[in-house]
C-alpha cells in the first residue's frame, strides 16, 4: 500500500524530572485509515497523544501534519489545521444546550456562514442520534449520551485527523456497538487515531495497531501482524485475552 | 541627625512594623495554606482586635497594664470565635468554592466594618500603653578622638515598641512549635495535604477548618492588640494591614510559612525605611505594582520553588 501519511511523529520523547514517559517514538497515521494505539496502563499513551495534539510540550522530537512541521504550534492552531481531539474524561460545555455544544465545535470553521453552520450542526446531531435532544442542557444528559456528544463535537469539526482518547470507556455493550458502527462509517472520510482499552473495538475497527509499552513502541503493524507478535503477546495481549 | 542614626531609627521602626505584619500575614497564610481560602475580611479581624482592645481596657479601667493584659488574652480568643462562627455559618455552606468564598468574605468585610461604624463610631481612639519608657540609644563614630559612643538627640525607642518585637518573636516561636511538634500541627498539615484523605482517616476536617479560620483571625487580632497603643483604633484601619499582608503572603509564596516570615521582615523593614526617606504614596505605588508583577511572572512567590 502506498498510503500517504497525514500525520507523522519522529523521535517524540517526554521526560518528567528524570522519569521517561515516552522515548524516541516514531509513528504515523496513514490517510483515511484507522490506527489504534494500545498498551497497558502507564505505557505512555496519554503523554504521546498529548504531544501530538499540542497539550504537552515534548522534551524533544517533532510532529508533522500533511508534510508541514507543526511541532512549534500551540494546540488550538493544530486543531485549526484540521485535527480534532476527544478527551479521555468527558469534556463538554455542561451549561450549554446539546445544539450549542456541537455548534461551537462546527463554528470554528463555519461561524461566518450561518446557513452552513446550522446545517452542519443538525447533520452531525442526526448522524449521532442526538437530534431529538438538541434542546437539552448538556450537563443533564446521561453519561453515555455525554460521551456521544463529545464524539459529535469532534465530528462537527470536520477533522482530517480525528483523535479519540478512550472513547468507549464506561459505555454499555450496545453503546459500544453503536460506536463501532459509527467509526466504521467514518473510514475513508477521515483519518482516525483511536486510543483504546477495549480490544473488541480495536480488532473490529483498526487497520493498523501500534503497541506502546513502558514509553516505547513495542510493535506496529496490521492487526494480524500484531496478533502473531510474540513480544506483544507476552507484554500485553496475552494477559487481557486470558482475563 | 546624621544618616547612620537616622537609618537605625528607621530600621527599628521597620522592625516594629514587621513584628505586627508577620502576625497578621501569618494568619492569612495559614488560612490560605490549610483551607485554600483567600480571606478578604482578614483586615477586619485585625480592626476588630484593636477595637475590642479599646473596649476591654476602657471597661476595666485601673492601671493600663491590667486592661492591656486582659485584652491581650481575651481579644484574640473572642475574635477567633467570631471568625470560626463566620466560617461555620457562611464559608462552610458555600463549600469553600474559590469564587463564592471570596465574594462571601467581601460581604463579611463590609458587615464587620459597617457594624463597627454603627456601634463604635467613626472616631479614632487610643489605648494607653502598659509601659512606655523612652530609651535613648547610643550611636558611635570614629572621630578625631578615635572610637566614640554618644547619644544623638532623637535616637530613641520606647520600651513598649521593644516589647512588641519580643512578643511577636515569642508568638511566632510558639506557633512554629505547635505546628511542627504537636498533634494539632500534624492534623493541620494532614488536612492541608489532602483534605479528602484526612477525612477518611477520621480527621474532622470541618472542625479543623473552623479552628484554622479562627486561629488566622486570632493572630491578626493579636497583632492589632499589640499595635493599638502605638496606632489608634479606627473602623477603617483594616485596609492597610490587609493589603500589606497580601503582599507579604504573595512575595513569600502562597501558603509557605517560612516564606511569609522572611517576606514580612523584608516588607516591614523596607516599608519603615522607605517611608522615612521617600514619599509614602510613591513607595506604595511601586510596592503594589511590583507585587502584582510578582504574581504575574512568579506566581509561586519570590521565595517559593517553581512547580514545573
Amino acid at each position, binding site marked *: 500500500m502506498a498510503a500517504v501519511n497525514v500525520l507523522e511523529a519522529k523521535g517524540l520523547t517526554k521526560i518528567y524530572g528524570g522519569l521517561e514517559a515516552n522515548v524516541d517514538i516514531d509513528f504515523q497515521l496513514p490517510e483515511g485509515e484507522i490506527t489504534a494505539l494500545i498498551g497497558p496502563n502507564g505505557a505512555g499513551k496519554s503523554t504521546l497523544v498529548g504531544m501530538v495534539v499540542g497539550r504537552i510540550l515534548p522534551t524533544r522530537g517533532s510532529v508533522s501534519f500533511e508534510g508541514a512541521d507543526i511541532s512549534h504550534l500551540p494546540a488550538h492552531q493544530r486543531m485549526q489545521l484540521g485535527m480534532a481531539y476527544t478527551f479521555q474524561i468527558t469534556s463538554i460545555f455542561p451549561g450549554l444546550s446539546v445544539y450549542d455544544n456541537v455548534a461551537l465545535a462546527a463554528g470554528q470553521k463555519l461561524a461566518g456562514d450561518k446557513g452552513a453552520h446550522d446545517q452542519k450542526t443538525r447533520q452531525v446531531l442526526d448522524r449521532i442520534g442526538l437530534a431529538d435532544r438538541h434542546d437539552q442542557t448538556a450537563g443533564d444528559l446521561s453519561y453515555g449520551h455525554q460521551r456521544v456528544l463529545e464524539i459529535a463535537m469532534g465530528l462537527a469539526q470536520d477533522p482530517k485527523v480525528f483523535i479519540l482518547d478512550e472513547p468507549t470507556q464506561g459505555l454499555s455493550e450496545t453503546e459500544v456497538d453503536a460506536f463501532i458502527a459509527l467509526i466504521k462509517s467514518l473510514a475513508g472520510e477521515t483519518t482516525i487515531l483511536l486510543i483504546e482499552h477495549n480490544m473488541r473495538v480495536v480488532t473490529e475497527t483498526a487497520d493498523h495497531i501500534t503497541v506502546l509499552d513502558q514509553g516505547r513502541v513495542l510493535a506496529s503493524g496490521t492487526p494480524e501482524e500484531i496478533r502473531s507478535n510474540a513480544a506483544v503477546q507476552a507484554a500485553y495481549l496475552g494477559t487481557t485475552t486470558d482475563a | 541627625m546624621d544618616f547612620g542614626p537616622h537609618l537605625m531609627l528607621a530600621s527599628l521602626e521597620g522592625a516594629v512594623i514587621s513584628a505586627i505584619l508577620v502576625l497578621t500575614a501569618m494568619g492569612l497564610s495559614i488560612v490560605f495554606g490549610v483551607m485554600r481560602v483567600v480571606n478578604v475580611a482578614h483586615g477586619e479581624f485585625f480592626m476588630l482586635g484593636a477595637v475590642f482592645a479599646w473596649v476591654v481596657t476602657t471597661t476595666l479601667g485601673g492601671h493600663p497594664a491590667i486592661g492591656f493584659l486582659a485584652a491581650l488574652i481575651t481579644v484574640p480568643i473572642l475574635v477567633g470565635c467570631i471568625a470560626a462562627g463566620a466560617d461555620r455559618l457562611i464559608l462552610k455552606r458555600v463549600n469553600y468554592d474559590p469564587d463564592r468564598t471570596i465574594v462571601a468574605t467581601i460581604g463579611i468585610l463590609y458587615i464587620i466594618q459597617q457594624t463597627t461604624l*454603627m456601634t463604635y463610631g467613626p472616631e479614632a481612639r487610643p489605648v494607653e500603653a502598659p509601659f512606655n519608657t523612652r530609651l535613648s540609644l547610643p550611636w558611635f563614630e570614629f572621630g578625631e578622638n578615635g572610637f566614640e559612643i554618644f547619644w544623638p538627640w532623637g535616637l530613641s525607642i520606647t520600651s513598649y515598641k521593644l516589647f512588641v518585637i519580643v512578643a511577636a518573636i515569642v508568638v511566632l516561636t510558639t506557633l512554629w512549635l505547635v505546628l511542627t511538634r504537636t498533634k494539632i500541627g500534624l492534623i493541620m498539615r494532614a488536612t492541608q495535604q489532602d483534605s479528602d484523605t484526612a477525612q477518611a482517616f477520621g480527621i474532622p476536617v470541618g472542625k479543623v477548618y473552623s479552628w484554622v479560620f479562627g486561629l488566622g483571625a486570632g493572630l491578626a487580632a493579636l497583632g492589632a492588640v499589640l499595635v493599638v497603643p502605638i496606632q489608634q483604633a479606627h473602623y477603617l484601619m483594616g485596609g492597610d494591614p490587609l493589603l500589606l499582608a497580601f503582599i507579604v503572603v504573595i512575595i513569600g509564596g502562597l501558603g509557605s510559612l517560612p516564606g511569609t516570615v522572611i517576606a514580612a521582615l523584608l516588607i516591614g523593614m523596607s516599608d519603615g525605611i522607605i517611608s522615612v526617606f521617600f514619599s509614602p504614596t510613591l513607595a506604595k505605588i511601586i510596592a503594589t505594582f511590583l507585587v502584582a508583577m510578582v504574581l504575574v511572572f512568579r506566581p509561586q512567590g519570590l521565595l517559593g520553588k517553581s512547580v514545573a
Partner: protein
Amino acid sequence: MSKAAKSNALHLAILALLFALFFVLPAYHVGAFSRIMVLAIYAMGFNLLFGYTGLLSLGHAMFFAAGMYGFGLGISQAGFSVAPAFLTGIIAASVLALVVGYLALRTAGVAFMIVTLMFAQTVYLVILYFGEYTRGDEGFVIQSAQRVFFGIDLTTETARYFTAFVLFAICFLWAAKLIQMPFGKRLVAIRENEERARMLGYHTDSYKLRALVVSGAFSGIAGASYALLFGYVGASFSTVQYSIFPLLWVLLGGAGTTIGPLIGVIFMFYLIDISSSYTTAYMLIAGVVLVLLTLFAPQGLAGTLRKRVFPWLP
C-alpha cells in the same frame, strides 16, 4: 415566538419602559434613574467579563476611573470639547484594559482576582500621586459651561436623563447582540470549559483578552458618562469599593444574563439610597446582600427567574 424574538421583544420593552419612566416618575427618581442607567453600563461591562467569560476581576474601578479621568482631564487639562474628551475616556479605558489583560491573563482564578485588585490599587494611588492635576480624593468639578454637546446643555434634568438613556440603550443592545454572535458564544464556552474550547481550535487567550478590552471599554464609557452628566471627577471612584459594586450588582441581578446588571443596579441603588437616610453605615447592606446572595441565590434575580420561570431569558 422564537427564543431570539422573545429576547428582542424583552429588550425593546425594557427600553420603552425606561423611556416612559421619565414622564411618570417624580423629579428625584428621574435623577436617580439617570444615575442608574449610567452605572448599569458599568455593570454590563463587568458582566461581559464575569458573567459570560467567567473571569472575576476585583479591579474594574480602574477602567471606570480611566474613562472618567480620560474625559475629565481631557476637558480640564487638554481643553477638549465633549466629544473628543469622551472618546479619550473610552480609549484610555480600553488601552488600560489591553495592558492589564496582557499581564493579568497570564494568571487564573484567585491570582487573577488579586492581580486585578493590585493593579486597580496602583491606579488609585497614581491618581492620588498626581494630585496636582487630579485633585486627589477631593476631585474636581467640570463646569456646566463645558458640558455642552452640539449646543445641548447636558446639565438639565431632561437632557441628562435622555443622554443617559441613549448611552444605556446603545450599550444594552450592543451587549445583547454581542452575546448572540459567535464571539459571545465562544466567551461562554470559555466560561464553561476553557480547555475544551481550546481543543476545538479557539485561541482562548485572545478571546479572554478581547473580552477584557470590551468590558473595560464599557466601564470607560460609564466612567466618562458619569463625569459628563454629573460633572464630578474624583479618586473615590477608583477605590476598591467601586470595584466591588459591579460585582454586587451583577451577582444580585444575575450574572450571565442581559437584564441582570440593570436589575441589580436598580435594587442596590434604592437599597443603599433608602438605608443611607437612616445610617452612615449603608455599606452594611452591601455586605449582607453579598453574603445572602452567595449563600442562597448564587444565580441572582434574573438567573433564578430563568431557571424557574422563563428558560428563554437571554
